[in-house]
């Protein structure tokens, strides 16, 4: 599991995740993700298009990150999930606390809504 962060206009970060978000995958990135995404306090749009698998530890990372960003006055939006990953997101009803969009442009539109 890896990720990279790209600054966008308006002080927003695009976070691109790549790989399996299972326990080993999340363990591998969690500290760096928290430092690079959460500690900055910048609103983040998170690209899930290259996430091949999402398990409970991945869900936990999203919840804790989104709540931490919210505490700093920032937001998180997820987008681009595959059918399988979206199914997991739907089962846990994550959109009740983290907005989820089909693509980046709609993710950015949600931030402006």
């Amino acid at each position, binding site marked *: 599991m890896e990720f990279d962060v790209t600054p966008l206009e308006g002080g927003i970060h695009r976070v691109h995740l790549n790989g399996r978000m299972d*326990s080993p995958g999340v363990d591998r990135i969690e500290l760096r993700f928290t430092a690079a995404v959460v500690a900055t306090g910048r609103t983040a749009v998170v690209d899930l298009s290259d996430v091949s698998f999402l398990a409970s530890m991945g869900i936990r990372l999203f919840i*804790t990150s989104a709540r931490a960003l919210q505490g700093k006055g920032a937001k998180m939006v997820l987008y681009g999930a595959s059918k399988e990953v979206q199914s997991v997101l739907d089962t*846990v*009803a994550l959109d009740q606390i983290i907005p989820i969009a089909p693509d980046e442009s709609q993710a950015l539109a949600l931030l402006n809504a």
Partner: protein
Amino acid sequence: MQSLLPAPIRSGPVMTDWFFQPSTELGGDAFGHHQLGEHSFAGYLIDVAGHGVGAAMHSVSVMNVMRQRALPGTDFHSPSAVLGSLNEMFQMDSHNGMYFSMWYGVYDLRTRIMNYASAGHHPSYLANPPRTDITPLQTRNLVIGAMPGVSFKEASCAIAPASTLYVFSDGVFEVATKDGRQWGLPDFLPLLSQPPAQDGGEPARLYAAVKQVARAGPLDDDFSMLTVTFT
């Protein structure tokens, strides 16, 4: 964990059976059932995210709250109320970042109506006696512990005589197969349409069927299957 699970009920208007096979790494599954007064019967299953001692202990804590009905001011006949109270009691900020999914149902023997609610959990399934109709029972709610103040939706359904309810954890269907594929819920569901085991043993039948397709060795996650048959 096994010592905390309720004894199966082999006779009466509501009969239960279960199969529990823990994964090699301690998991966070727990389930149970109990009578609620003279006319109601409650059943539930929880799945704490993650593995290890922490997840296992968390599942035991939740299970003990359920067994002792230790949710102040909560009507245990109301699934939405139970999930709401559990959510306030077990916020992940106060429990080492842990959250859990849950399915909870309450059956009224007088009306043959079951009220149920699920939180971040896949459906439980109600099978009619000829197994021609396998109905998913799920309400779309957030996992428990993610955010305080969230409300939980519940639903209800009528229970026909001789129906069977299947309540299970995702370890039942998230298995790696012998041919290198990853099974999902749609792969598992056809097993519920097969003729059930006679004279009990239905959860064990399903475990054997899953093990037959799974790769060699132990399953990756706890296998928890609770069946409830309504006479």
